[in-house]
């Protein structure tokens, strides 16, 4: 049976190299979207945003923001194509980025 939850995840770019990262349940930053903590309630989304601001202040990441995402059978996918491209790498260079580095998550950018 397919389970699907809608919510928000927190994403940013790592300060040192710009790599796209996601906030995890254990408050670390992961390169994989599937590790992202999906927050469904507005309150917990606000808390997530706060964590992002703290992390920015701690100079680990930069430009943290919430994005809409869904979790399907345990895998996370961003709703908007822009974020899906960030999650995977350029659609025109499928030999580059997370999609070939094993950190791309379970979904393709399109569809």
């Amino acid at each position, binding site marked *: 049976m397919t389970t699907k939850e809608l919510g928000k995840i927190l994403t940013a770019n790592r300060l040192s190299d710009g790599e796209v990262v996601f906030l995890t349940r254990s408050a670390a930053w992961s390169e994989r979207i599937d590790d992202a903590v999906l927050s469904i309630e507005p309150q917990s989304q606000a808390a997530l945003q706060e964590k992002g601001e703290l992390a920015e202040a701690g100079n680990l990441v930069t430009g943290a923001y919430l994005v809409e995402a869904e979790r399907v059978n345990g895998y996370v996918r961003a709703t908007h194509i822009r974020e899906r491209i*960030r999650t995977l790498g350029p659609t025109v*260079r499928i030999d580059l980025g997370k999609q070939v580095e094993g950190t791309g998550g379970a979904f393709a950018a399109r569809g």
Partner: protein
Amino acid sequence: MYRYDEFDQQFVDQRVTQFREQADRRLRGDLTEDEFKPLRLMNGLYLQLHAYMLRVAIPYGTLSSRQLDRLAEISEKYDRNYGHFTTRQNIQYNWIKLEETADLLADLADVEMHAIQTSGNCIRNVTTDHWAGAAADELADPRPVAELIRQWSSLHPEFSFLPRKFKIAVTGAPADRAAVKVHDIGLRMHLSESGERGWEVIAGGGQGRTPMIGVTVREFLPEKELLPYLEAIMRVYNLHGRRDNKYKARIKILVHEIGADTFRDEVEAEYARGSEIDIAVSQRELDRIAAYFAPPQFEELPNWSPRNEEHKATNKEFAKWVRSNVAPHKQDGYAIVNISLKPEGGIPGDATADQMRTVADLGRRFSFDEIRVSHHQNLVLPHVRQEDLFDVWQILSAADLATANVGLASDIIACPGLDYCALATARSIPVAQSLSRRLADVERQQDIGPLRINISGCINACGHHHVGHIGILGLDKKGEEFYQITLGGSSSEDASIGKILGPGFAGEDVPDAIETIINTYVGLRQPDETFLSTLKRIGAQPFKEALYETV
């Protein structure tokens, strides 16, 4: 080519040291992102979708072989073995790490290059005709003046915090290959009856969300008055340009809001007031700079090469390439070789490290050590002996650099779009790729004739869609990419802004739509008519009818 003097080298080296300290402080947490961002942008370092992106300045699109070799090396050392040549004759690297950027900048400084003023509200890299110093129709090489402007505008204290970015383009030929009418300032060389050189000064052109054609502020400005006059324009802009709204801050809005006549009066009044410091350049200094751009030691050759003719007669592919990619040179026996970075299904403007090396090597062996970057995102070998064309073509072919489509339908300009760019609303590269596959047949393209298809991934118009004969703008409609088509733009001497044809299309429908437009033109054109002249004669209606009935 211009060589850095002590001052140039010192300031570039100093900037590397400065940036190294700034980046270290940022990484240590001594600077916040808000404090650091303007500093990194002053050095061309952006944060894009996947990583940092570095935009490296290529002054007026001129490179030596050594410099291009270094750009290749940098792409291997700090990036992923490729670079992207842009519509501003620059190169961008897409996968840069902040912690390595200072080392990269030091490697650039070592070959007299940098990334300064490739971002921010300052005077950006000056662009010019990519055939400068070689074109058969040229009055004179515009690069000495471009270099003069580079020196004047580099770190100019008064013009480092303008209301908005500022772009200057220069051309020395009657055929405008530098798009001077769609720049903040465009300069066009004219000769007086006595042969004295002067410049038509055009201001207030631009693309972006409010595209405009520039207006002529002075018909003929003697060359020695150029810098003081430019300074007067900059002052009027700096004083009156809007700083309250970034969408209304470019000089084009000022010129439009106060009107061309008032703007002209303001500039002339400012110019008449003069400056405390006389910055007019002496003939001696102009001559000193011009000497760097002295023509290479051309051989005396007939303007006809039997070897070249023979290869054209026996090799159809070579003949097609010569027809599309080789342009006449001002020197008998020489030719300009345009290298297409638009292979069928490829990414416009991208070149691998190996390809860059191939071109650098060709430059060294066949083109007096010179390479150019065009704003069409192609490369140029400006001075090749006609005798050598076949050898050059063979080497290019082996490196997948011999696509015979320069100036034709599949020579598509496309910005990075949503595949890389943080500001994008839609992807542009995949549209260019599918179109270039659809239009790949070179004979058909040659029959269609000159055609510019330009694609931007958002309203900022880095892909110059407003001035494409056919322009394509990628937008976001409720989370879906869709594409608006414009017709009738041009960035040449007959500059015009394209007009929207009608409702937009989904990405997968764009190739059919463009095909319909092209077929409509081919069906209705008269002998010798180009796409633009047919459009001018019959208007957009037949295209609209064909498009919205069939797609």
